[in-house]
């Protein structure tokens, strides 16, 4: 199917105090974003796409200087695609604290003329949503037709409907969870330890030393990547295949899966900021909309008004279907409109990024009705 084609990222500057949930604040900040499609006259057809751990504002299309730069959700967003840019005005944004152009730990702190590094605040899903709300105002969007995301992106969509009930008609929450399990947090902690114990980390202020904690980032990415795939998918793709065809009796790359993980790790460590990785995993750990309600998730949605599409994938063991069902339960407890689809897919957590006829068909059908509702 056709892609949206060439896209150009833009920057929105906010010269105002931004107070984080932690209490820390920035005097001002920038958000890098992209838009696809056209905002209609009623400004009713805007869709916000929230990114997960390692993605960015670059949701769809590609950049003129790089034919391989397809957006991370290019199969979902574009002309004639489930989120049809012929009808919807789609916004992708790099979250505050990120490392793809929005103000984050690697940005220059105007007060010191040096990168924020360790001084950059801990960010939370609430902080991201509040920054996204400022972007919505900047773009003149009073109410999103839909806010959507997969994984951590889905958590932001949920948070939108809790924090700004009147500003999101629909939320599409895909492969998400209402809060992390102890196992989820454990994986994040190992990833963080890999980074913070790298001698090149320098307590987060590695920029001044002209180094990057590459080893830590690589390990964090390898670990994360394993949790994104199912055992079956990994076996199917790599099996026990050996690169050279025979056992070599050494510790260098032998199995294809080792080669794949190392390649993914190298690619990631080249582009991703270690401080951002630490903060995003922390935002995941902290996400718990039920916390102010003594753990009662249903209470958390007691003021919500949005309509929801919740999607999970059978082979996702990171955020399993059972976790999505917890969300569905909380929504039906509040008599909110919700549809829940459990997609039979073998790929694990990453299935939310893959082509799947049923999954994309359900999102497309849902968005068809959203389009009719907002006259898109």
């Amino acid at each position, binding site marked *: 199917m056709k892609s949206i084609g060439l896209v150009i990222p833009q920057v929105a500057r906010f010269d105002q105090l931004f107070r984080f949930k932690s209490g820390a604040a920035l005097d001002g900040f920038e958000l890098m974003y992209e838009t696809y499609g056209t905002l209609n006259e009623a400004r009713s057809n805007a869709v916000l796409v929230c990114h997960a751990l390692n993605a960015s504002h670059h949701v769809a299309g590609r950049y003129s200087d790089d034919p391989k730069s397809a957006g991370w959700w290019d199969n979902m967003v574009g002309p004639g695609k489930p989120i049809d840019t012929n009808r919807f005005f789609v916004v992708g944004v790099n979250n505050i604290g990120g490392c793809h152009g929005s103000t984050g730990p690697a940005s220059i702190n105007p007060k010191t003329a040096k990168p924020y590094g360790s001084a950059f605040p801990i960010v939370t899903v609430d902080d991201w949503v509040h920054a996204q709300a400022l972007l919505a105002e900047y773009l003149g969007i009073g109410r999103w037709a839909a806010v959507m995301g997969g994984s951590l992106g889905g958590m932001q969509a949920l948070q939108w409907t809790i924090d700004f009930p009147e500003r999101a008609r629909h939320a599409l929450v895909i492969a998400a969870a209402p809060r992390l399990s102890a196992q989820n947090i454990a994986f994040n902690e190992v990833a963080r330890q890999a980074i913070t114990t790298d001698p090149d980390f320098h307590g987060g202020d590695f920029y001044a030393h002209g180094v990057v904690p590459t080893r830590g980032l690589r390990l964090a990415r390898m670990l994360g990547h394993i949790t994104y795939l199912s055992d079956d998918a990994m076996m199917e793709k790599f099996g026990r295949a050996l690169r050279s065809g025979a056992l070599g009796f050494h510790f260098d790359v032998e199995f294809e899966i080792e080669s794949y993980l190392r390649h993914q790790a190298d690619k990631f460590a080249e582009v991703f900021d270690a401080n951002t990785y630490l903060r995003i995993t922390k935002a995941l750990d902290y996400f718990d909309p039920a916390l102010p309600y003594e753990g009662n998730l249903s209470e958390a949605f007691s003021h919500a008004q949005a309509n929801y*599409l919740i999607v999970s994938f059978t082979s996702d063991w990171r955020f399993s279907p059972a976790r999505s*069902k917890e969300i*569905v*339960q909380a929504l*039906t*407890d509040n*008599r909110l*409109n*919700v*549809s*829940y*689809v*459990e997609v*039979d897919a073998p790929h694990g957590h990453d299935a939310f990024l893959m082509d799947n006829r*049923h999954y994309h*068909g*359900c999102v497309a*059908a*849902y968005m*068809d*009705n959203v389009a009719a509702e907002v006259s898109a």
Partner: protein
Amino acid sequence: MTRADYTAIARWVPQQARVLDLGCGDGELLKFLRNERNASGYGIEIAPDNILASVRNGVNVIQKDLETGLSGFGANSFDCVILSQTLQAMHHTELMMKEMLRVGREAIVTFPNFGYWRHRLQILLGHMPVSSDLPYQWFNTPNIHLCTLTDFEGLCKTLHVHILERLVLEDGRAIDALPNLRGSLAIYRIKAA
């Protein structure tokens, strides 16, 4: 299901009712009840194609295996629970009856009447019945708990379930005399005792 079946069911669904449709299929009935009765609620479905069709119809559909019960829903959380042409395909028939009447103030149950004369005739002629209400061959039917009107009413008695109303149809037309023989589709409105 035909329009006549929908209309018959809709008559028993109050305006603005909260409805739970168990085995909601393509969501057409829920859509019909939304348009005709301003009803809201959820459909439960397990088949992917039906879930897609329900989403397309703009109704709330929740993917779930009914055989696991309705533990996600509180007591009396719906005005009306509908089990349309599904009872005969369920393994845990008694559990389903109890669960329906726990989460719903009332329930509407429809099922093909195995005692319909055409079905009886086919058995007399030496075959398993096949009709518009039982459109399967013996080897591919999902129906494992077929019953007659008399059988269903016996179960209701055993489970202390009140039958509030009964409508028996043949090709969408109401049948009054000899319903267990002449009716092909039974529709009951029931509640817990």
